[in-house]
Each structure stands twice: as structure tokens, then as C-alpha cells.
């Protein structure tokens, strides 16, 4: 048994069907592998019986760790909720379960820790056949244009060291997308794959819009994809207007066939557009810098923290 203290942070949203299996599969594995642990269930304002099922599940007195529920004030999505859970965790190592659906062998939990103790700070665990096509496309573009060297993909859970958490804390207060920040923190990252058991797919309902917004934000924040696209676009127009200006001048000098005033009008318009596109390019640069300033404050709202089980 490891003499370490681990925290297990779990995201819950309308998981009344999955929570019991998670508790009875994951917690015993953690309890057997580590001397001390805590489990933090972050409830993102579920409107089914998730909390009741959770309390029933841990009420049998079998679990020796401290078990608590962080209740979010309103629905705030996976990222904000998991940030809250991780911020309250005190373990030397923190497991982040983005879902409480278990479609892997519980042994993966210990296995990921063993890999972590071999000099890694982040170990992610992924379904080898997981991820929808849209997700895979997103990760493909993201990884190509990402400013960091680490790659990201669909992950079921991950374990991170306290050192990694401290590192990302010092990178900025706001963590819009944990995966991307972990990948960018420059510490050793390893990935484990498993083949899903029981035919269960990890599905995220209600999250489609939210995940799309997040994808857009992440592109802006972590990659230079959009910045590049817009720079290329404005450069293209810049060149076009200059081209038009030259064409008008050449036309005027060569055949003087233009209608009275055409040349001066075109010159004026070209010059004006040149200025506008130049300004746009500068503005884009400004905006990308400002993003860093705006994303400064951690923004989640927690309504309460409740202790539901503990070491006796």
C-alpha cells in the first residue's frame, strides 16, 4: 500500500444511474491502494436523484476516506466545476474523473499511479476507441496549432501531481480548459489506453453547446489557429487593395481612358481600405493580448461544501 494521500475529484451531473457503480468500483480500489484518501464529488446542480444516490452509496461505513460534496450554485459545466473540485483537494496527488461512468477495469487507477511515480507529473487514461469524429477533428486541429508540445485527446480520467497543480496555478488564475493547461505546463505527461468493457460509451448530454463554446475559446486561448487565419485574411485584403491602387495608377498613366475622376476615386478608396485593414491587423494583435488579461479571475460559484463521510 502506498503511503501517499490522494484526492479523488469527480464530476457529477444527473448521474443517478452511474454514481453507485462508481462508488463501489473506484473507492474500494483507491482505499486498497493508498493509506489515506479523500473523495470530492462536485455536483453541477443535478436535477435528478444523484445526491441521494451518492449519500446512500457512501452511508454503509465501508469507506475510510473523507467524502465530501461540493455543490455548485448553478449549472456551470465540466471545466468550472472540476476547477472548483481541484482547488479544494488537499492530496499529494489528485485524480480527476470527468465522468463517473465506469467502462474500464478498476486496476487502471492503480496502474496510472504507478506510471506517475516513474517520474511523470500527469498521467491521462483514455478509451482507445473513444471520442466522436467531431472530437477527433477538434483535437487534430488543436494539436497541430497548439503553442505547447503536449498533445491532447478524449480522456476518461487523469492523475496529476501536486507539483503539476502548483505549476498551472503559477501560469495564471484562470483555467478555461484543464487538459490544454496540463499539456502546456511543460511537465512530463504520459497516456494510458484501455479497451472499453461492458460496451458502455461515455456520453455527454447537455454539454454540446458548452463544449463547442469551449472548443472555440480553447482555439483562441491555446492555439494561434484563429490568429493566423485572421492575419492571413487581413494580409490578403491588404495586398489586394495595394494591387488595386497600383492597377488604377498604371491604367491612368497608360491609356488615360478612364472616366473623369475614376482614378482619384479608386485611389482614395484603396488608400482608405488599406488603412482599415492595417488597423484591423493591429486590432487583432491587441485583442489576442487582451484575452490574457481578461482571463485572469477564476470564475466559478460554489453554494456549499458538505461532508458526508469520514474516517472514524
Amino acid at each position, binding site marked *: 500500500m502506498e503511503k501517499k494521500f490522494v484526492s479523488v475529484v469527480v464530476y457529477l451531473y444527473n448521474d443517478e444511474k452511474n454514481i453507485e457503480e462508481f462508488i463501489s468500483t473506484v473507492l474500494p480500489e483507491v482505499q486498497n491502494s493508498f493509506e489515506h484518501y479523500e473523495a470530492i464529488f462536485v455536483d453541477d446542480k443535478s436535477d435528478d436523484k444523484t445526491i441521494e444516490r451518492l449519500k446512500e452509496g457512501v452511508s454503509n461505513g465501508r469507506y475510510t476516506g473523507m467524502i*465530501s460534496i461540493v455543490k455548485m450554485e448553478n449549472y456551470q459545466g465540466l471545466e468550472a466545476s472540476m476547477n472548483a473540485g481541484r482547488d479544494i483537494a488537499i492530496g499529494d496527488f489528485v485524480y480527476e474523473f470527468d465522468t463517473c461512468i465506469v467502462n474500464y477495469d478498476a486496476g487502471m487507477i492503480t496502474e496510472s499511479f504507478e506510471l506517475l511515480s516513474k517520474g511523470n507529473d500527469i498521467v491521462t487514461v483514455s478509451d482507445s476507441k473513444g471520442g466522436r469524429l467531431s472530437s477527433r477533428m477538434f483535437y487534430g486541429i488543436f494539436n497541430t496549432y497548439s503553442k505547447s508540445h503536449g498533445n491532447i485527446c478524449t480522456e476518461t480520467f487523469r492523475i496529476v501531481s501536486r507539483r503539476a497543480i502548483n505549476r498551472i*496555478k503559477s501560469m495564471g488564475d484562470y483555467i478555461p480548459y484543464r487538459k490544454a493547461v496540463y499539456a502546456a505546463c511543460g511537465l512530463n505527461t504520459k497516456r494510458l489506453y484501455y479497451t472499453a468493457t461492458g460496451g458502455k460509451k461515455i456520453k455527454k448530454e447537455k454539454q454540446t453547446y458548452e463544449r463547442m463554446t469551449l472548443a472555440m475559446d480553447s482555439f483562441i486561448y491555446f492555439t494561434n489557429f484563429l490568429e493566423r487565419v485572421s492575419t492571413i485574411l487581413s494580409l490578403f485584403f491588404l495586398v489586394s487593395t495595394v494591387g488595386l491602387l497600383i492597377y488604377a495608377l498604371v491604367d491612368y498613366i497608360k491609356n488615360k481612358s478612364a472616366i473623369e475622376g475614376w482614378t482619384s476615386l479608386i485611389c482614395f478608396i484603396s488608400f482608405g481600405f488599406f488603412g482599415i485593414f492595417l488597423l484591423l491587423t493591429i486590432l487583432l494583435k491587441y485583442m489576442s493580448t487582451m484575452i490574457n488579461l481578461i482571463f485572469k479571475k477564476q470564475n466559478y460559484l460554489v453554494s456549499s461544501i458538505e461532508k458526508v463521510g469520514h474516517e*472514524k
Partner: protein
Amino acid sequence: MQRQKYDRLIIGAGIYGLYSAIYCAKKGYSVCVLEKEPEAFTRATFVNQARVHMGYHYPRSLATAMKSAGYFRRFCEDYEYCIKKDFNQIYATSTNFSWTDAKQFKSFCEAAGIRCEEISASRFFKEGMCDGAFLTEEYTYDAKLLRDGMLLETGKYGNIVLKYNSAVTAIHRENDSYIVTDSSGCEYETVFLLNATYASVNEIISKVNPEECFGIKYELCEIILCDVSDELKATGLTVMDGPFFSLMPFGLTGDHSLTSVTFTPHDVSYDREPGFDCRNKAGEYCRKGELGNCDFCSFKPVSAWEYMSRLARKYIKDEYGFTYKKSLFSMKPILKSSEVDDSRPTAIKVHSGDGEPNFISVLSGKINTVYDLDEYLG
């Protein structure tokens, strides 16, 4: 056995009991204090953070804060011999999960008129963990020295009787007096009964009137005493305002006390009288109506050191060391009405009506609000 008669009968030799005894003796009353334990100050007066509250703890209750500040000066003057002043008390506001941020804390201190000098949070705390740190004026008292000082004073008065190993078993009305019976079979008659038993307050009330009680949430609490490295010896650290911790000098003992909002309470009970599983195991020692001393009990919980130390370590920089020495346990009653704004007013209940013998119960979460009793002791 002959019945003994006193003008004032006080149950509980904690600070509230002894303060009242001395106050009444000065006025010429004959006083008797009944204490369940073999000595004074073995429970809550000893087992707590030993903080002489200035008010910093109550950024959500300005009234409590200002009242604390007023009593702070008076307490420090009256009991100077047990007060440790020569350390820096640092309050910090946590970046995450705090109900109060650095700016709010500062303006709160200004409004309450208490000292608050901003220092760099990075001096004691890890990067990004606290958004502000403040040097404040707050002291700690040494319960053992306070006890000795107060006992010395009670000894000066011939009209105070202290009775140890005396657990109250029954109280009943007889004409215009209360008759109190204790575990040794003695009977005491009085026209003025003061219930200063803190966690047992409802147990005593129910012996007189089972209908009445304070609305209380009970917490079985653990205070950890630590050895700290030299760099921390003259420093107290308190991170607020939420699920955080405090590591501060424990009176003049040279130890620091470590407590945390989440892990110090091991178990909670909302029953009228403390209802905990461990009481069933402890049997006779902690039978119904006679709460035992959690610190002496062999069924106390496993220490939460693993949790508390990690919480503190998450905040405090690694160069400041602290190690486990021992744990102290006690039962802490919290008035239910004070949970929202986190205020801890002194609650004083006068149970008796006009023309009846006096029966008063006191419940307070702080030692320096003991002066609230003056107007009731008459």
C-alpha cells in the same frame, strides 16, 4: 446528609464558572462551584485555539467584531499574566473558496477599527494561494496559567467553595429554591443557579425543565498541537474565510495549535443533547445526561492530522516546518442561529420568571465575552 445552602450555585469550573464565582464573591455572596472533573479547565476552556478574539474572525458580522474588539482590551488587561503577545498574527484571505477577499477584509477591519497592515502574501504562502495577507493584533492565552491565576484568586475569598468530582445528577424546585443533588449524594440549596457547562448546557437545563433548550449544533472537535520550525515560532497564520485552517501559538506553551474548519469537527449532531455513536461505546463514562470529557475518553476519533497537515501544507511554504505532537479533543456547541453570518454571540438564557428562584444558562464560543455575564450576576 445535611443540605448545604449557598447564595450562588455555579455548575462548571471553566472560565465562565470561575469568573462568575469571583464576581459574586466580591459582592459578598456565598458561592459554590460544582465541577464534574477532578480539576478546573479540563474541557473547552483548555481545548480550543486559545485565541483572544479581536474580531478578525467575523468579517461577515460587524457587530460581533466590534464587540470582540472592545472586550479584547479589557481581557488582556485583567489577565495579562496568561497572555502571549510577542508574536505576529497573520491573517490571509484564500484566493479560492473564500467568502471574503483581501479588499473586503481590509475594509471590514477599517470599519471595525482594528489593526490590519498588508504584507506580502508570498512571504508565508505558496504562489497563487492567498490574494492578501495582513499583520494583525491578536493574542493567545494560556489556559493552564489562567486557571492557576483564577484559582489563586478564588482562594482569597473565604466565601467560595470549589467542589470537584461532582457531577450534577438531579435538580428540583422546593418552595423558593433549587435543590441540586450531585454524584456524591450531597445536596445544595440555592436561590440562584448558574449553568456554565458549555457543551452540557442542555443536559443541565433538561434536569430542571425538559421543555427548554438552546438550539445547538454539536461538533466533536480536534485541536492538534504541533512543534514548529524556528521561523514560525513567533508567527501565527490564519487563512480565511471558508474551509481553511489556522496554525498559531498555543498560549505560552511553546506549541502551536493546528485547526481547520473542515477537519477539526469530526462528527456533527443536531440533537438536543450531543448524540454521537462514540457515546454508546463509551457507556457509563459518557452516559445520557452526563457528557464525558472527550479528551480523556478512550473512544475518541482517529486524528485528522493527515488531512489538516496537508491542507496547511498546500498553503504554507515548504521552508516553514510543523510536526505532530499531540491531539486534544472536546465537544463544541454552536448556536444554530449563528451559522449564516458566522457570528458567535454570547447567549444567556434566564429560565426563571418573576418571583421564582433564578436559573440562568450561559453559552458562549469565546472566552473574552465573559463580561457579558456581569449584568445577570447581580
